[in-house]
């Protein structure tokens, strides 16, 4: 499978840095930012396939960022990262169009699988749109 672009958003820089390093080692084009605002600015200039979003952050929280991303980049898939099993936030996130959610600390392989699934979904989605626009033209 082709390598894909992932943006990690988390206010814990140590966690973020290591995660990005590990992702890069697995041939994932990973970048990391420390807040929701930064994430939105980042996406304006360099779009990604999947965003991994921490729910609990200072400033904009995960749900707000999710809403914003889905508004600006509807095709970008989002995986929520929660500190604990919070049913309401999980359900709310899913309702707002998140692909899935994971609980910290997560297994690196599990994360990779989820990322791949999300990308697959996104590519299928994009393919459909391409076909529709081609068909329409």
């Amino acid at each position, binding site marked *: 499978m082709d390598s894909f672009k992932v943006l990690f958003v988390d206010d*814990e820089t140590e966690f973020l840095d290591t995660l990005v390093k590990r992702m890069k080692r697995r041939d994932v084009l990973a970048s990391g930012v420390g807040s929701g605002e930064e994430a939105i600015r980042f996406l304006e200039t360099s779009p990604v396939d999947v965003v991994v979003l921490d729910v609990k952050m200072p400033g904009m929280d995960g749900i707000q960022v999710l809403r914003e991303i889905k508004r600006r980049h509807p095709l970008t898939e989002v995986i929520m990262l929660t*500190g604990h099993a919070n049913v309401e936030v999980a359900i709310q996130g899913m309702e707002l169009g998140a692909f899935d959610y994971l609980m910290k600390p997560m297994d690196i392989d599990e994360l990779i699988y989820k990322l791949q699934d999300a990308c697959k979904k996104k590519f299928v989605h994009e393919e459909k749109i391409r076909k529709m626009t081609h068909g329409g033209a």
Partner: protein
Amino acid sequence: MPLRENPNQRGQNDEGQRYYRTLTRNMVLTIILVSFIPYVIVTAILLYQFHASHREKVIAHLEGLVKKHKQNIDAFLKEKLGNLSSLAKTFSYEELSNEEFLKNRLEMLQQAYGPFFVDLGVINARGIQISYAGPFQLVKASYGDSGWFKSAMKREYYISDVFSGLRGLPHFIIAVRENWLGDPWILRGTIDFVAFNNLVEQIRIGQTGFAFILNRDGELQTKPSYPVRADHEPYAAILKREKRAEDQVSTFEWTDESGVKSIYVTAFLKGGDWVLVFQQKVSDAFSDFERALRVTMVVLALGLLAILTTAFLLSRRMVGRIANADREKHMMNEQVVETGKLASVGELAAGIAHEINNPVAIMVEEAGWIEDLLEDDDFKDGANLKEFRRALAQIRTQGKRCKEITHKLLSFARKTDERVLEFDIGEVIQDIVALSGQRAKYSNVAVKLNLDNALPKVRLSQAELQQVLLNLINNALDAMEKQGGSLEINSREEDGILVIEVADNGPGIPAANLGRIFDPFFTTKPVGKGTGLGLSICYGIVKKLGGEIEVASTVGVGTTFRIKMPLEKIKAKGSENGKGE
């Protein structure tokens, strides 16, 4: 639940006991005062009224009696006088001087009027008894010096006081004066004392009431039933009275030297010469009242006793209830404090868990990073490579363990969203089932939904309903974790009541535990696995939402939790047929 005892609390208990004793005493006093006062006052008023009217009646009766007897005695005397007077007028001095003739007259009188006249005598102007008819030998007896003769000669007729006279027996004399050839003579009759006495002695009332007659000098004219000291008070006072009205009856009370109070009714007779005295001890005269008083007192005492008993028992029971209520409240308070403490401990734990979770995540990531680096060729031949891998795997395992602990803490301490929303019951149930789907699959539990799609939309806190359902479903899954089974969730409407059932076919709940499962901190799960709060939280939420939660369980068959909520209360506005809004 027994109260935990500590010295401090025991001190409070003593104080509490004193408080309840005071409360009991105050209640008893209040009840007694409120009941006693009107009771005693009413009784006293009634008794007083009764006493007054009874007394009036008794006195009126006595006065009537005395008056009647006075009139009888007067009439008797008048009649006897009339007898003699007609005898003296009808027959001449000569005829009556004949002893045989006089004897005949006496017999006739005795036959006609009874044995009142003992004897008859004719006395000339010098006081010599010319003829005599009677049981004594009194012919030629001279009365010239006796007081009665002198008095009798002065007027037309005369009735003497009682005296013994020549015969030595108490008697009194009725005398009529007539003229024969210019000389006065006297027809004299003696009245039998015993016969006359009977007239007065008949007046007997009660046990101590009797009558007698006194003359002006305080001498007894009849024989009283009880000894009378006529020279003492109050008789002296009666005799001293100036006004001796014939038809007046007077009544007074007098206490003698021995402290006995008597009632006296007096009437003058024989033209004011004699006084008829009736006397009776007050206690005897008013014995009816005394009896009524005794009965009333007994009834009053019994009533007061009853009030006293009731006051004590009632107060004791009420204070007992209050004490119980207080104890329950105290226990509730303790529970609330306990729960509050638990909540703050939970919050603290949540805070710590959250803070710890991030460093743990970083540590696990760093360990993962080292693992990644060990893949590089540089380390392939490292002697301790195996040990490194083992240590890193251990770090990962322990990190996961930390994660599980913190997740449990956080989900326990999580606060529930209480916002009221309008939503479809079916959708919420489906959401929750979807969340638990993975777990159900692992536990080998088949989930079956029987949802009524025609149910109206409801207005509730969605998060709270989710929590209730999630708790019930998790409990059911926990119960069926080992053997697997099937979980059925039904929703329907029954007579305006929304019914949601969560039914499993797990091992069931023993009857002994069934009554306690909604109690806080009751759990059958191993220590550390359950808090015992899940079902009590469910119970609290359902109650708060205005519904009821009940459980039916049979060991070996399964358990069904049933939530019932009146649709009237929770139905969304404008939602009648499930088509909400």
